[in-house]
C-alpha cells in the first residue's frame, strides 16, 4: 500500500472517529471548531455592520440586508458561538476537574453537539436559500411572524434544533456533577469552574423550555396558520416578549457564569493563592442564578407593563449587582498578597475586571427603569451588553483557551503571540464600544441601518468602526497562534502552570480514560494540597482495576441529520405540500435511529487492568 493511500485511509478514519466519538475530550474539540467557525461568521457580520455605519447616510449594504446582518450577528454570536465555545470548555474540563472518566451520558453528549451543529447549519443555510432572518435576534412578533420569505423560518427551525442540543447538554452536566465526582470531592470542594457550570446547567434546564415553547408558537403561526400573534384573531404579541425574555435573561447568566468560573481558576493559579472567599463565591453564583429568573421583564420597561411591574423588576435587577460586586472584590483579594504572574490567560482576566465593572455599572443604570426610557433600544444598550458579553464572555473564553489549551491539545499556546492577540483586541474593544454609550445618549437608536448627517453622530461611529478592525486583527493573530503552536511549540508537561485542581494531575492531553485510578480528594484545590505536602501525584482512591468505557456511535449524528432534513421540510411545506415528504423522511430517520438506540443494547466495554499496566497511557 502506498503512503498516499494509507494517509487517505487515515484521514477517513479520523473523520469517522470524530463523527462517532462519545469521548468528552473529542466532543470538546468538535464544539471548539464548530463554535470557532460560527464565531468567525458572526465576526464577519459584525465587520459589515460597522462598515455600513462608518459614515452618515452610507449605502454600503441595503436596508434589508442590514437587518439580516444584525439578526444573524446576534443569533450566531449568542447561540452558535458563545454557547458552544463554553460547551467546549465544559466538556474539556469539568470531567477532569471532578476526577471522572467521562460524563454521565456520553451518547447524549454527542447527540447534543450534533443537534447544535445541524441547527446552526440550518440557520446559516438561509443565506443561500432566499435570505437570512431579518427580525432581530429577539424576533419580536408580529414583525417576525409577518416577515416575508423564509428567513425567520430558518431562525425558528435552527434555534429549535440547536436549543434541544443545549438542553441535553445541560442535563448531562447536571447529572455528571452530581453523580460522578471522585471520592472525597464534596460540593464545597468542587473547583469554582465546576460550580459555575453546575449553576449554568440548571439555568439551561429551566430557561430553554420557555424558548422552545416560544419557537413552537412562532412556528405554528408562520407555518400552520395558528393565530397566537395575530391581533385580528385575538392574538397577543406581548406573549412572545415574555417567553423570549424568560429564556433570554437567564441566557446571559448562562453565558457569563462559566467564565466567572474560568476567571476564578486563572486568578487563583497565577497568583498562587487559594480563591479568596470561596464559599461566598459559591453563594454569589447560586444567588445570581436564582435572581436571573426574577428579572426578565427589565428588557420590557418600555413595553407598557405599568409602573408597579416596572418598579419591581427595577429593584430585583439592581439586587443582582450585589452578588456580582462580591465576586469582583473576591477576585481582587485573591490577587492581594499573592504573586501575580502575567501570562496571557492572566492578562485577559486582569483586563476583564475594569471592563466588566463598567458593563455591570451600565447594567445598574439600565435597571433604573425610568432612566431606561432613555437608554432602551439605543446604542447605550448595545455598548452595555457588548461590555458584559465581549468584555466578560469573550475575554473569559480567550483566558480559558490560553489556560487550558495544553490540557486540550497538549501544547502551551505561544505566549508572545498570545500578548499580540490581547492588545489589539483589548484596545479595539474599548475603541469600538466605549463611545457607543455616548452615541446612544446622543440619540442614536440601535439596529439603525443609517444615521443622518447633522445628527452629531459621525465621529463616534467612525471611531467605533476603527476599533472593530483592531478587534479583527486580534482574532487573526490568535488564529495564527493556533497554527504556529501546533507546528512549532514543544509538547507540554502535565502541569505547566503550577495548577491547583485535578485536571493538572494527569498528562496533557489526558489518555482517553482520563484517570488510570480515580483520585482521592482531600480538600479544595486537591492537587495543590498534595503538592504542598511534597507529593508528586494524587493518592488513588482505588486499586488499579478494569475501566469501563462506552462504545462510540454514529446514531447521534444520524438522529440530528434526520431533524436537519425534516427542518427543511417544515420550512418549505408552506409553499408546496410536496415538501412534507421531507418531514416524513427526516422524522423517520430520527425516530428510526431512536428506535435502534432503544432496542440495541449498548453496555460498553472494559479496558483490562493488564493492558493499563502494560500500556501506561499508550493505549
Amino acid at each position, binding site marked *: 500500500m502506498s503512503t498516499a493511500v494509507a494517509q487517505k485511509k487515515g484521514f477517513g478514519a479520523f473523520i469517522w472517529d470524530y463523527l462517532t466519538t462519545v469521548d468528552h475530550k473529542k466532543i470538546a474539540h468538535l464544539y471548539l471548531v464548530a463554535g470557532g467557525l460560527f464565531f468567525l461568521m458572526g465576526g464577519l457580520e459584525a465587520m459589515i455592520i460597522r462598515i455600513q455605519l462608518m459614515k452618515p447616510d452610507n449605502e454600503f449594504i441595503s436596508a434589508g440586508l442590514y437587518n439580516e446582518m444584525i439578526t444573524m450577528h446576534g443569533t450566531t454570536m449568542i447561540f452558535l458561538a458563545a454557547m458552544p465555545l463554553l460547551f467546549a470548555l465544559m466538556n474539556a474540563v469539568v470531567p477532569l476537574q471532578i476526577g471522572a472518566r467521562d460524563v454521565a451520558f456520553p451518547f447524549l453528549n454527542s447527540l447534543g453537539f450534533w443537534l447544535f451543529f445541524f441547527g446552526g447549519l440550518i440557520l446559516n443555510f438561509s443565506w443561500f436559500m432566499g435570505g437570512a432572518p431579518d427580525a432581530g435576534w429577539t424576533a*419580536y412578533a408580529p414583525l417576525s411572524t409577518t416577515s416575508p420569505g423564509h428567513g425567520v423560518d430558518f431562525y425558528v427551525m435552527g434555534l429549535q434544533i440547536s436549543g434541544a442540543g443545549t438542553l441535553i447538554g445541560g442535563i448531562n452536566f447536571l447529572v455528571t456533577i452530581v453523580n460522578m465526582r471522585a471520592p472525597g470531592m464534596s460540593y464545597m470542594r468542587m473547583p469554582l469552574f465546576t460550580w459555575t457550570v453546575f449553576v449554568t446547567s440548571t439555568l439551561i434546564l429551566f430557561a430553554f423550555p420557555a424558548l422552545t415553547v416560544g419557537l413552537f408558537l412562532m412556528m405554528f403561526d408562520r407555518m400552520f396558520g395558528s393565530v397566537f400573534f395575530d391581533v385580528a384573531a385575538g392574538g397577543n404579541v406581548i406573549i412572545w416578549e415574555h417567553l423570549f425574555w424568560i429564556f433570554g435573561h437567564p441566557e446571559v447568566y448562562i453565558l457569563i457564569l462559566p467564565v466567572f468560573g474560568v476567571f476564578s481558576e486563572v486568578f487563583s493559579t497565577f497568583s498562587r493563592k487559594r480563591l479568596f472567599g470561596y464559599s461566598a463565591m459559591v453563594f454569589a453564583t447560586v444567588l445570581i442564578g436564582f435572581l436571573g429568573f426574577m428579572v426578565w421583564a427589565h428588557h420590557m420597561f418600555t413595553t407598557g407593563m405599568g409602573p408597579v411591574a416596572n418598579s419591581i423588576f427595577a429593584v430585583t435587577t439592581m439586587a443582582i449587582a450585589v452578588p456580582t460586586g462580591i465576586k469582583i472584590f473576591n477576585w481582587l483579594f485573591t490577587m492581594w*498578597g499573592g504573586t*501575580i504572574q502575567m501570562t496571557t490567560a492572566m492578562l485577559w482576566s486582569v483586563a476583564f475586571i475594569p471592563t466588566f465593572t463598567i458593563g455591570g455599572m451600565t447594567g445598574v443604570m439600565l435597571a433604573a427603569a425610568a432612566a431606561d426610557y432613555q437608554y432602551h433600544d439605543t446604542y447605550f444598550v448595545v455598548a452595555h451588553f457588548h461590555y458584559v458579553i465581549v468584555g466578560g464572555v469573550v475575554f473569559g473564553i480567550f483566558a480559558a483557551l490560553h489556560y487550558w489549551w495544553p490540557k486540550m491539545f497538549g501544547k502551551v499556546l505561544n505566549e508572545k503571540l498570545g500578548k499580540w492577540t490581547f492588545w489589539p483586541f483589548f484596545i479595539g474593544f474599548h475603541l469600538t464600544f466605549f463611545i457607543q454609550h455616548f452615541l446612544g445618549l446622543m440619540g442614536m437608536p440601535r439596529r439603525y441601518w443609517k444615521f443622518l448627517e447633522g445628527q452629531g453622530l459621525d465621529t463616534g461611529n467612525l471611531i467605533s468602526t476603527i476599533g472593530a478592525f483592531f478587534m479583527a486583527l486580534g482574532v487573526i493573530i490568535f488564529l495564527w497562534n493556533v497554527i504556529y503552536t501546533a507546528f512549532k511549540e514543544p509538547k507540554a508537561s502535565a502541569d505547566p502552570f503550577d495548577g491547583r485542581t485535578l485536571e493538572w494531575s494527569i498528562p496533557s492531553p489526558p489518555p482517553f480514560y482520563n484517570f488510570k485510578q480515580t483520585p482521592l480528594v482531600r480538600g479544595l484545590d486537591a492537587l495543590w494540597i498534595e503538592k504542598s505536602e511534597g507529593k508528586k501525584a494524587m493518592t488513588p482512591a482505588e486499586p488499579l482495576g478494569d475501566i469501563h468505557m462506552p462504545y462510540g456511535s454514529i446514531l447521534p449524528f444520524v438522529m440530528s441529520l434526520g431533524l436537519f432534513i425534516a427542518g427543511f421540510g417544515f420550512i418549505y411545506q408552506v409553499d408546496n405540500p410536496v415538501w412534507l415528504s421531507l418531514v416524513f423522511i427526516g422524522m423517520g430517520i430520527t425516530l428510526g435511529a431512536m428506535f435502534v438506540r432503544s432496542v440495541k443494547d449498548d453496555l460498553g466495554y472494559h479496558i483490562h487492568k493488564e493492558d493499563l499496566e502494560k500500556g501506561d497511557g499508550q493505549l
Partner: protein
Amino acid sequence: MKGWMGKFRALFLLGSLSLILSGCGVDKLSALKPDGYGAELLYDLMILSIAIMIFVFIVVMAIYTFVLIRYRRKKGQEDFIPKQTEGNKVLEIIWTVIPIILLLVLAVPTVQAVFDLAETSSDEADIRIDVTSAQFWWQFDYAGEEISTSQELYIPKGERVYLTMKSADVIHSFWVPSIAGKMDTNPGDNENTMYLEAKEEGVYWGQCTELCGPSHSLMDFRVVVVSPEEYEQWVNDMKNADPEATPDTQVAQEGQEIFQNNCMSCHAIGAQPKGVGPNLTNFGDRAKVAGILEPTKENIKNWILNPNEYKPGNTMPANLVNEEEAGKVAEYLMQLKPSEITPESAQ
C-alpha cells in the same frame, strides 16, 4: 423631587459632570440636552446613577491598581508561596452592605420617577393625542379636535400633552429624546400612554426605536413645540382648512384632480375620512418629506414615482401615476399650507 435633586447636584459637584456630558450631541436630539419635564427628570436620574457608579469604579480601580503593582511577581520570587488566605468575614460583609446602600439611594428616586412618568390625563380639558404608528410613519389624531397630522406633532410649550399610543402593524417605539423618554406602540389591545411637556420652543427629532422592518432607521418624525398662543392659532387654522379648496395655479388644480383620482383611497386631506396612509392636510408646511427628504418638488415627485427607493419596504405603490402627473401632484401637495405656524416659524 426636583428640588431635592437640585440640592443633591450642588452637594456632590455633579454640576461638573453634567457640564461634561451636556457637551455631547446636537440640540433637539440628544438625551443629554433635555428640554422637557420627562427628559430633565431622567437626566437627573442618569447623573445620579453615573455619579454612584463612578464612585464604585474609583474604589475598584484603586484596589486594582495597587494589587497589580504591589503583588506582581518579581525576579527572584519564582518559588515564593504566598499565604493561602481563606477569606475575611469583615471585608466580605463590608462589600455586601455598601453596595446595598448605594443601590437603595438609586432605587428610591427610580421608583418615584417611574410613577411620576406614568401619570395619565384626568381632565377633559387636557390636550390628548392618539398616536398610531405604521411602517414607516406616524399618525397623530388630536382627540376632540377633528385634527389629524402625520409625521409632525404640534404641541404647546409648557403644557402636558397626553399621548395614547398604538400601532397599526408591528411594534414600534416612540422616542423624542430631548423632551421625554420612549414608549412602545403595540398592535391590538395593549395601548400605552405617556405625556410630553416641552420647556423650549423648537423642532425636536423623534425616532422609532423598535426594529420594525427595513426602513426602521428612516422612520423619523418631528415634534414642533410652539407657544400656547401659536398652538391655539394652529389648531384653528387646521380646523378651518378646507380639504376641497381649489388651488390657485392651473398645474396645482390638475394635480388635485390626479390626486383625487389616484391617491385618495389611502391618503386623507382633512381629518375625515381616515386613510391607511399618512394624512396630508398640512403637507406643504412640513419640514421634511416622509420624515427624511428635503421638501423640494423634485424630491416629492421622485418619492411618488418610487417610494421604495427612499424607504425600502414601505407599502406605497410605485408608478401609480406617470412622471408628468407626479410633478403636478407634487405642485398640488406643496401648496397645502393651512397655517402660518410651521416648523420653520417655530425654529
